[in-house]
């Protein structure tokens, strides 16, 4: 079916309008229509978290969300965190701890870590592991990721 649903929403702080088809996922809209390719397509069924975005303050798998359902919502993607002062500590600690290898899972993990730190300011390693249960990384073994998030939680204000 053609793209025939008009939607309007806030994307990374900017009001956007676009047309989507009923079958389109939010991830397909972001990547293919709006050219925001930071969010990744991993599994397409909510198992890997590479497509994690923030919708009205909550972490969501964008591959499982219908694009049409973005209407009227406030959405933040990994691109939106580039200018977010509250993500600075996280970005610094991911680099400092070498918490990135191939990088494919990284946008989703940073999105989820940002959400976790909003809910729990100074998370314990156990809380971080639990918070990342919906994100898969096949390179790092998670240790450096968990250390990086713990450090960001300890230093962030």
């Amino acid at each position: 079916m053609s793209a025939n649903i008009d939607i309007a929403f806030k994307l990374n702080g900017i009001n956007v309008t676009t047309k989507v088809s009923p079958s389109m996922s939010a991830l397909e809209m972001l990547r293919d229509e709006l050219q925001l390719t930071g969010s990744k397509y991993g599994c397409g069924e909510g198992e890997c978290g590479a497509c994690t975005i923030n919708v009205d303050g909550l972490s969501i798998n964008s591959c499982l969300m219908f694009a049409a359902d973005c209407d009227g919502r406030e959405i933040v993607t990994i691109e939106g965190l580039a200018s977010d002062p509250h993500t600075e500590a996280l970005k610094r600690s991911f680099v400092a701890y070498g918490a990135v290898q191939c990088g494919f899972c990284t946008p989703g993990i940073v999105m989820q870590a940002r959400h976790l730190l909003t809910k729990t300011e100074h998370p314990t390693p156990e809380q971080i592991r639990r918070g990342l249960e919906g994100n898969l990384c096949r390179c790092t073994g998670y240790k450096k990721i968990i250390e990086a998030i713990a450090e960001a939680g300890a230093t962030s204000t």
Partner: protein
Amino acid sequence: MNVQLATTELPPAAPAEDITAVKTYAAPRSLAEAVALLRAGNVTILAGSTDLMPQSKTGRARFQPVLMNIRRIPELCGIDEADGCVRFGALTTMTELLDSAMVKTRFNALWQSADHFASNQLRNAATIGGNICNASPAGDTLVPLLVFNARVVLASEVNGAVTTRKLPLAEFLVGPGRTQRRPTELLTAVDLPLPPDNFVSEFYKFGTRPALDIATIAIGLGAVCDGDRLGDVRIAFGAVAPTPIRAPQTEAALDGKPLPAAIEAALTAAEADIHPISDIRASAWYRRELVRNILRRMLEHVGKH
């Protein structure tokens, strides 16, 4: 050996019907508007979409020409208590269940099922109404909902007005992916009668990893502890029958009987209550072993924490 595949999920899909069959998208803003659309027919209902989206991509879900997003309907939101009963709006998410102190205190097994549910990202989207209507034999919340004698509320339009009927969840669930919901009906809420103040409940889900797993088996246990005896015993099992089930014979073997003496009889009764099959997750034999061993463990610890 006769091994059936994936029988704890929905039945094998009909030939993939492309989602492009969807002709119209609607996002009603009131219940009246929604049931009017349903009355007109040929509607697929969209809520959290965590099941619908993967089912549509793999062809498991057959799409109707109208895709109706119910997430903008205020009547389907919120958790309210009235007349000894708690009503959970169909759009209540797993995260909202977890964030509710009332749910944790009064409906602990339900709270635990939300805690074991998938992952944070999925809990933020998945709704209780969706979990019920998806009617998976392994549906996480269904087991505790059976323990709490849940009733579903179904709304439809009759003679231009919104009419509702209520049905016990145990009757509503018919088979894998099948319910008694009529195509013109919308599940608007699930009602749980408040259990007695001293009622304790536990949920146990067995899977191969703590997160993002579908239950190999699940057990819900609720009872009033009176010394070494249990009263008002309610036991439910998931992933051991075509739907999650209550276990009447197991309950009868425990009700009013002294523990731990009654445990062996309860385990034997549980064997008769369940009808597990072999599928991709486990063999029927293994499921029977799990039910036996985990139910024993739960009964040995009931009311002790």
